[in-house]
Structure formats: structure tokens, C-alpha cells
């Protein structure tokens, strides 16, 4: 698995033509920031296309949060509103079609917890054999919180859940030696896109010389590099 430092160093070397310097204008943190959002964009695209084709989510992206302990949601109202029971993940979950960012949720006993969207829960509750119960747990997700239906408040200390999910990756928060979850398919594209963005910053964009209103995205080298000054 590739580390954060390897990705950043490779991009840096490509951008600076293998001559990195302490005085360079390019900050590694900026490279990490670009890598983060291109990585999440590319991973989302890859997984969405695989799901559309009926393929599995690449295992390289799946992370496991083990033995998450539950809690009850604090509600502002003083009435006897039903308190919802939730388990909170440490990471943000990647936004994938059909909420497939959560791959699998199982209880500590190994029973699967099935997913239901918040809007479908209303009619599922009316179905006698499908409604959430202790033996038929159902979850819905809001952000980092996984709300479990069918669990009672008294069961919280005894029930823990394991969550398999695709995290949203933030390279800024990683250490240099931390591994980045990226497949072999996405890695070359990721580095290409970060390098392209770096070139835009270092060398600027092409002027609209033809005055046709078309924003030329192709990065070009700075004039100084494209046509080095002759000796004065």
C-alpha cells in the first residue's frame, strides 16, 4: 500500500522536475489538500461505476470500525419523544450512490443490521414481519452517526456493532508514513490530477489569445520555462 509521503513526494518531483528545493513556492500541505479531494472524487467515481455494473466495492477501500459503543441522542424537547440510539464513527463516510459508503453493519453477535433510508422507515414499521425488532435490527445513517432501530435503551451497554465502511480520506490529517487507501486503478489518475493542478499554480493558465471565450484548461509552462531567456 502506498503511503502519504510517497504520493506527495512523487507529485512534488514531477512538478519540480526532480529538483525539489526548500525555497519552492509549493507547500506539501497544499499538495496533500489537492490529493485529498481528487482522491475522494476518483474513489467515488470508481465505486459508483462498479456498483452500477453490479461489481463489488474494491476491498482496498473498506475499513472496519470494531465494537462501537452506542449512545442515546439528546433531544431538546421535554416531551416523551422516542430517543434514538446511535453509534458514531470516527471518520466521515464517503458519499456513494445508494449510501453504499456503509458496506456492512453487524452486531457483536454477528447478526446483520440492514439498511433503510429514513423515509422508508415509516412504512417498514407498519409491516408486521419486516418492522425493526431486537431480532431484526435496522439502521439509517445521518453523517457519522448510525441510528439503530429495534434496539432498546437498556440494551445499549450489551450491544456493540462492527461497521465496514468506505471512509472519506483526509491526507492533511495523516502522518507521512500512514497508508492511503487507493486502488492501482486510481493511483496513476490521482497523481496526474494533482500534478496538473500543481502546474496550474506554478505556471499559470493559457491566455485566451483567440478571444473566443473558451477557457483553455491545459496547463502550459510559464513563459520563462517554455522560452528561456537568452543570456543578457
Amino acid at each position, binding site marked *: 500500500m502506498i503511503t502519504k509521503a510517497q504520493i506527495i513526494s512523487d507529485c512534488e518531483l514531477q512538478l519540480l522536475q526532480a529538483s525539489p528545493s526548500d525555497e519552492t513556492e509549493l507547500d506539501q500541505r497544499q499538495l496533500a489538500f489537492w490529493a485529498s479531494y481528487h482522491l475522494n472524487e476518483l474513489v467515488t467515481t470508481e465505486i459508483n461505476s462498479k456498483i452500477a455494473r453490479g461489481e463489488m466495492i474494491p476491498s482496498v477501500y473498506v475499513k472496519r470500525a470494531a465494537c462501537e459503543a452506542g449512545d442515546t441522542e439528546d433531544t431538546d424537547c421535554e416531551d416523551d419523544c422516542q430517543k434514538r440510539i446511535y453509534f458514531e464513527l470516527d471518520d466521515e463516510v464517503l458519499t456513494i450512490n445508494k449510501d453504499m459508503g456503509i458496506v456492512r453493519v453487524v452486531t457483536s453477535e454477528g447478526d446483520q443490521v*440492514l439498511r433503510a*433510508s429514513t423515509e422508508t422507515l415509516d412504512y417498514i414499521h407498519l409491516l*408486521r414481519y*419486516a418492522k425493526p*425488532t431486537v*431480532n431484526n435490527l435496522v439502521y439509517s445513517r445521518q453523517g457519522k452517526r448510525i441510528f439503530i432501530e429495534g434496539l432498546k435503551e437498556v440494551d445499549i451497554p450489551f450491544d456493540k456493532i462492527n461497521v465496514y465502511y468506505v471512509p472519506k480520506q483526509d491526507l492533511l490529517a495523516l502522518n507521512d508514513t500512514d497508508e492511503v487507501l487507493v486502488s492501482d486503478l486510481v493511483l496513476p489518475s490521482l497523481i496526474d490530477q494533482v500534478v496538473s493542478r500543481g502546474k496550474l499554480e506554478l505556471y499559470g493558465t493559457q491566455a485566451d489569445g483567440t478571444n473566443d471565450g473558451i477557457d483553455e484548461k491545459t496547463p502550459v509552462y510559464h513563459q520563462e520555462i517554455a522560452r528561456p531567456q537568452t543570456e543578457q
Partner: protein
Amino acid sequence: MQYFSIDEVVAEAMTVTSNVTDADRLIARQWVASALSQMGMSEDEIVVCELTPKNLLVRKPDNCRKVYELACYDSSGNLIPHTFRAGNKRIYPNTETRTVTTNSEGTQIITYTTVDVSEDRFNIILGTNATSVAKVKLRYYAYPVDNDGMPQIREDEKQACVYYIRFCKAMKDDDNQSKIQLAESMWLRACDIARAAKKSSSLNNDKAKTIAKIMNSMIPNFNRSTF
């Protein structure tokens, strides 16, 4: 007879159904229950239980599918005759009363008059002349259920349930008409097979012999001992 859990049948159906979501898996449990209600009853689903009336109402068991027969008893265990009436309210006045007679040995003999019994979806309803009924023995067709109250599926119903889930899923997805019709015809065929299998499994060899004996007894000069 081997029985399968509802989750096992749903899981098997998911293996032959495309584009399945978690929500489909949840709702499929309900689809299985709907399919079971369309596949008829079998005599090995008959269950007997004893119930206690409360305010002239006898709550039917949760797994009760259809009442087969019932018997009313007083607190001493004496049978009280009953008449089953449709609807849960009497429209004619009750003119019958309980009679108490004393026999030659000086013992009181209580003779109960026929009590009214009717039923609705959830209860067996005893008439107001049934105050002496202390318990009701009920023989009924039950949905086979597991310890959690979930229906269990007989081995000869399983394939039909799988096809019913495929049919419902095709309708839910609003698939093309030919696909829905194909799924429906597969389900109907499997349902027929399951119903026939259940009927034939109810008729064991002893029952068939008994029926044959009754029929043959109507033939004069027929030596049944050689049958």
C-alpha cells in the same frame, strides 16, 4: 417435515434476484408471509391449545390461521355444548336457561344449555349465556412460527416463496411487462405445486385406509377383513 427460517428463504431468494438492496431484503420478509397465506393449509399445522375466557372473550393465539373446532368446559371440566353463530351479536333473545336437577342419590346434576359462540379476527366471543365457561379448548390451523414469532417455511413451500419474492421485486422495480408476467407465472405454478404437496402430505396411509373402509362399508356383503 423440514422447516426453514424466514431469513434463510429470503437469503436464498436474494441469490437469484438482481439489484437487491437492504430495503428489499427487509420487505421480502413480509412478502414471504403474504406468499404463505396463499398456499393453503395442511393437517400437520393443526395445533390444540387451552384458553381461558376473560369477560366472555377468548383471545385467539397469535399464530392462529383458522379455527378448526372448539370445546367449552366449566370449572369442573364438564363439557358445555355450544352453537357457533356468525357475527358477534345475538339478534334473538336468549330463552334458554341452565337447569339444575337432583338425581335419586340426592346429587345435583347441572345441565348446561347450549351457549352461543362466534368469532372475529382476534377473538372467540362467548354469548352472555356462557358465564359458566371456564376454559375453552381450541383446535386450529396455525402458522408454524419460531421462538420469535416469525413464520417458518415448509420445505415444499420454499421454492414458491422464492418465486413470489422475485415476482414482487419485479413489480416493485416496475420491470418490463414480460419479465413481470414470467415471474408471476413461475410463482403461480410453484404455488400450485406447493398446495398439492401440502394436501397430499395431509393424507397419510392410515387416513386413506379409514376413508376406504367407510366407503367400502356401504357395499353389501363386502368382507372388510380381507381389505
